[in-house]
């Protein structure tokens, strides 16, 4: 056991801290609005120009070959410096790991540099009006067009975060209507300016146009990596479920929710308590519970990364991770609202905004009910039926 950072890692931290303190923009509007999204893109391009858009990626794709440990350090410094939400995250943290694992060289070479440079902006097309937690119930279909050498996609995707502002969609479509539910699905990459795509943004709980419905009507996508600019197939035809599960593991686990983010929120919560808590012991207890939770999440992650860097995989334990951070995020923000008291309803307070966002945590990326089933069945080994 060694909970210290190497000299090299400390140097990396110092470099990140210096750059972030000098460059992080403050007071950006929400990136989940059209106006805010444009401003966030400028920030994403600044990050990319300095090599910080995706630190753990190879340099050739716009990263800096950082280790997983260095990625954690970067994230800690990013949120410590008050860095804003990453509007590119669904591409960089969800799609990219899948492209690294399942993509062809042509797909990696085409998509990844454009993704880290925030030229292509990706949203995800998993859920449909009648397929949420039951993801394998999707009905959007891909019909073979042999003559044109590709597929024709039709159907409706929904809850697509920032879909109205993005340029590309990745998602699952049913390519074999006769196959059993989890089979016969294919993972497609689709440019949203393709003919037959209609996107309609709509308001989330917090009022931002952060959601979108995506309608596809006979949208042509070429085979495999034949013409990446027009989209394609990621992984094999009818192999989409396995490919998508690799992505959802990223979503539930490490890659989306670095501990630095919660540590930073916990620090701001402590500052808020000192400024406004009035030495109320019940509020103090609530703050301390959440603060200990952020510490626990940090340490748990260090254990996971130790395991991953030793060649292991967290597997179904990533569901524990998702349960913990999503409930921790709510606890942190709720404690802040309780300190603010009646002022919590004043709309421009970042903790109120953060609370509304936190409430989505137990719902997206697989509801916490589904995660609890996974923990019971795959961590504890309880019978499925």
């Amino acid at each position: 056991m060694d909970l210290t950072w190497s000299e090299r890692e400390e140097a990396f931290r110092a470099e990140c801290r210096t750059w972030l303190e000098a460059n992080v923009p403050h007071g950006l509007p929400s990136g989940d609005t059209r106006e805010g999204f444009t401003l966030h893109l400028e920030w994403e391009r600044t990050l990319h120009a300095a090599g910080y858009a995706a630190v753990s990626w190879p340099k050739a794709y716009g990263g800096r070959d950082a280790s997983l440990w260095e990625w954690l350090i970067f994230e800690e410094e990013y949120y410590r410096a008050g860095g804003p939400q990453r509007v590119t995250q669904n591409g960089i943290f969800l799609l990219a790991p899948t492209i690294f694992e399942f993509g062809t060289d042509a797909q990696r070479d085409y998509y990844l540099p454009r993704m880290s440079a925030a030229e292509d902006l990706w949203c995800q097309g998993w859920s449909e009006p009648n397929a949420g937690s039951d993801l394998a119930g999707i009905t959007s279909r891909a019909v073979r067009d042999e003559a044109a050498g590709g597929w024709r996609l039709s159907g409706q995707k929904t809850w697509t975060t920032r879909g109205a502002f993005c340029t590309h969609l990745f998602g699952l479509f049913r390519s074999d209507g006769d196959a059993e539910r989890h089979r016969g699905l294919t993972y497609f990459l689709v440019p949203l300016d393709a003919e037959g795509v209609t996107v309609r943004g709509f308001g989330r709980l917090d009022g931002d146009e952060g959601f979108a419905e995506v309608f596809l009507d006979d949208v042509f996508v070429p085979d495999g990596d034949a013409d990446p600019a027009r989209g394609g197939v990621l992984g094999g035809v009818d192999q989409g479920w396995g490919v998508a599960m690799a992505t959802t593991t990223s979503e539930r686990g490490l890659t989306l929710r670095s501990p630095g983010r919660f540590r930073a929120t916990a620090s701001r919560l402590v500052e808020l308590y000192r400024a406004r808590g009035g030495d109320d012991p019940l509020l103090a207890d609530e703050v301390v519970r959440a603060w200990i939770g952020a510490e626990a999440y940090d340490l748990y992650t260090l254990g996971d990364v130790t395991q991953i860097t030793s060649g292991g995989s967290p597997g179904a334990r990533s569901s524990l991770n998702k349960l913990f951070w999503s409930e921790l995020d709510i606890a942190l923000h709720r404690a802040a609202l309780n300190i603010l008291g009646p002022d919590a309803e004043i709309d421009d307070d970042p903790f109120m905004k953060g609370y509304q966002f936190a409430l989505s945590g137990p719902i997206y990326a697989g509801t916490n009910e589904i995660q609890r089933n996974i923990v019971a069945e795959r961590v504890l080994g309880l019978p499925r039926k």
Partner: protein
Amino acid sequence: MRFAFSDDQLAFADAVRELLTNECPPEVVRAAWDSPDGRNRRLWTQLAEMGVVGMLAPESIGGLGLSDIDLVRILAEAGFAGLAEPLADVAAVVVPALRDHGAAGLSDELLARVVAGEATVGLGLRSDGSTLHAESADALLLEAEDGLHLVATTDVELSPLNTVDGARRLSRVVWSPSEETLLAGGPSAAVEARDRAAVAAAAELCGLADRMLAIAVEYVTERKQFGVPIGSFQAVKHHLANATLALEFAKPLVWRAAYSRTMGDPDASLHASMAKAQASDAAEVVGVAALQCHGAIGYTVECDLHVFLKRAWALQRRAGDAAAHRRRVAAAVLHAN
């Protein structure tokens, strides 16, 4: 950076688990309820021979010269087995106190006897107000306002207490501190003893919670209602998922507290409090879930669950309960500067 136990540490823990699986099954823990003094000297000797009692003592007097990181996994194993011997008090608190404050003539020789398993020393923290296995102890390490005292058991008056966990023989200790009994004056030795006791209890609680969860998983997998195992019902699954969640996010805090103690981290006390707060709460969550998932059979003394449940109730409040430790965290985190 590496947050994991070494292969050697895990191998030692496995060896201790094997010993306790064989020598300390639930029927042995139950037997301690009915024995005259609650002790099992055969088992204590085996633990001493294995080096567990004197893990933190120097090799020169028969110890293993190991660290708190090595010890913490072993204490979790003691919890898992429901071991009723005073291992946590002796190995985690008494041994390092005698090791570090050996100037008093009595303590050097005593330490060697403790490490050999020939003597035990009971622990009396002011926050606990009672001492485990004091009647069978040769001496007592007692906290007073001015520091830690080492007192011969013959020089104190003991009033035995009835306990909900019949294997835990507790006594009130009436005694008078004096210059002769003072082992380590000043606050730091007492604070360290309290922190060590808190982390040791936290480690035992993790082991107890692991055990209660394992018992519940086994039961809900076997027990059928409506023609299927009750563990296939979501309501039952979610109870045990919640238990797992609480436990798995307490353990890292406990392991980290042992690491910080070993490294002399200035935040070692803060880390001890976070560990004890989280482990106490986790054991409560796991215990309640395990009992509920058993239904009526869990609410009997025939089912082994109660042995572990009652131990957990005791340790949750020993060496400071969750609320006390969160107050301590609040003092350090919210009111610093």
